């Protein structure tokens, strides 16, 4: 199933005009500042908001001129920023509300309960749940619909770090089976979840593509952020048990990451490298405490803010960002094509 839409609508002062196509699976993060129209777009896709234009989902027509498939007939699951549990029902009642209306079975319910680990909460009143518990129940309820598309509107914005990671893990796992559109303005969530990203600004999708490409694009909004971060794909290498370091091979270079024990798995892994954790030098320093020093080629440079520049670097077929001062850029003679060494102070998996 794939989603394609071309929509326009007016909400208050904000004019929304968007068109995009959604990949068949995985998480697509709809990213942008508050007020850019992300939630409105999601509500339009759900059929909760008036709009003009066309929405197609696979071979189903959801919206066109003079026709709007009502929300209750769209095969969707949805989460809002607040859990919005039905307050007159207990946890089990909330799941049953959807189960009965979507024709799901008791077995489906048991599976969803297991997936979201809410077994101990089933008999609880929704008023006694913590924020993290409530959002897990809200996720379970969204899954009860047996959705062909999940629309998640900043579902984790009110949660602390621990609960956020737990739910992000669940959502990632679910996204292997169901396409997810995930609204957020949190870069960390984008980095954790996303293969695809739509960047939204002032009611328009200004860029869309693979997350790691959009993150590194100098002319895009992400590379200009103070917390700009590059995503690199690599493969797990050897584990040094004496120094507790895990090797990850990226484009024939080896990155060493601190790890208490060997990282298991054979799938490609993702490395996050924040632009401000990368510094540049002309020669490879021989007596540095930094483990990860790699030869790179400068692909481009952009001034961001007073006295600051962000540099895009090529490492094999992948891109890295470095945030340095404008003076360093001048004195190091950073220009496209220059061969330099990148010193990477911190690397994270995920």
């Amino acid at each position, binding site marked *: 199933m794939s989603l394609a839409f071309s929509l326009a609508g007016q909400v208050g002062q904000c004019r929304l005009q968007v068109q995009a196509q959604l990949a068949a699976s995985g998480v697509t993060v709809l990213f942008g500042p508050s007020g850019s129209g992300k939630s409105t777009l999601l*509500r339009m896709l*759900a*059929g*909760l908001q008036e709009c003009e234009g066309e929405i197609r989902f696979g071979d189903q027509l959801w919206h066109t001129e003079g026709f709007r498939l*009502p*929300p*209750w007939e*769209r095969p*969707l*699951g*949805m989460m*809002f920023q*607040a*859990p*919005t549990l*039905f*307050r*007159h029902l207990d946890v089990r009642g909330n799941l049953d*509300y*959807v189960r009965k*209306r*979507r024709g799901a079975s008791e077995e489906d319910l048991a599976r969803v309960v297991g997936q979201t680990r809410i077994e101990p909460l089933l008999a609880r*009143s*929704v*008023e*006694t*749940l913590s*924020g993290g518990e*409530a959002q897990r129940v809200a996720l379970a*309820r969204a899954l009860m*619909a047996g959705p062909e598309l999940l629309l998640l509107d900043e579902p984790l914005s009110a949660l602390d770090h621990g609960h956020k990671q737990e739910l992000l893990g669940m959502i990632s796992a679910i996204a292997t089976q169901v396409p997810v559109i995930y609204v957020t303005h949190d870069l960390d969530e984008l980095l954790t979840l996303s293969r695809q990203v739509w960047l939204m600004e002032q009611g328009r999708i200004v860029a869309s593509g693979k997350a790691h490409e959009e993150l590194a694009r100098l002319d895009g909004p992400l590379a200009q952020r103070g917390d700009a971060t590059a995503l690199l794909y690599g493969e797990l290498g050897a584990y040094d048990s004496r120094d507790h370091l895990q090797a990850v091979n990226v484009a024939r270079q080896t990155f060493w990451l601190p790890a208490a024990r060997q990282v298991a798995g054979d799938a490609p892994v993702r490395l996050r490298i924040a632009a401000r954790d990368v510094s540049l030098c002309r020669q490879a320093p021989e007596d540095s405490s930094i483990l990860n020093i790699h030869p790179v080629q400068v692909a481009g440079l952009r001034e961001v803010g007073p006295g600051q520049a962000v540099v895009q670097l090529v490492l094999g077929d992948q891109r890295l960002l470095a945030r340095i001062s404008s003076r360093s850029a001048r004195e190091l003679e950073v220009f496209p094509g220059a061969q330099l060494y990148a010193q990477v102070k911190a690397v994270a998996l995920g």
Partner: protein
Amino acid sequence: MTMVSDGDWLALWVSIKLALVTTAILLLVCTPLAWWLARRRLPGQALLEALLALPLVLPPSVLGFYLLIGLGPNGPGGWLTQWGEARSLAFSFTGLVIGSLIYSLPFVLQPLKNAFAAIETRQLDMAAVSGARPLDRFFSLVIPQARQGYASAAILGIAHTLGEFGVVLMIGGSLAGETRVASVALYEHVEAGDYANAHRLAGVLLVMSVMMLWALFRWQRKQNVGVMP
């Protein structure tokens, strides 16, 4: 209590019957009306709400006077009676019900309207994307979440109809078993100087009213445990 006369018991029974019939009809009529007033913004709404709230401020005798004219054989309501046996709706139980409907309407409408207005739009949106159609949403979500409003509306409707005096005096007359309600019976005892019977009837009405309101407030307290996130 056993000293309350048969005639007064009959008057109490008429009062209770009137209160129950009136409140039942009002709950049905006010449900869509309150929903519409609480959730929509349409031109002319303020004027309509003012008219519906009029019984709150108008002296009941004024209302009763217009009803007397309206429901009498020569009034616009008189044509209703051409199919019935009665010549006039005034001085009949049906007439009392019509009068009470108008008189008690704001007491049923207002709590329902407040309850409906308090339901978050997000809850309705979530129900919609959960597969619930509008009518389904109304019965599966709105009514359960507005149950306190319904309890308040029912108790206030009954209590206020029981306490009705001015309107029934104008349009009811005092036909035993038909239109003589408890409050009118009490008035007649006082007029006749029969303070002993007046005391008994007034006592019964007082106890009934306190019990009803006590039950309402107790129930509301029990419902109010915890605050939703």
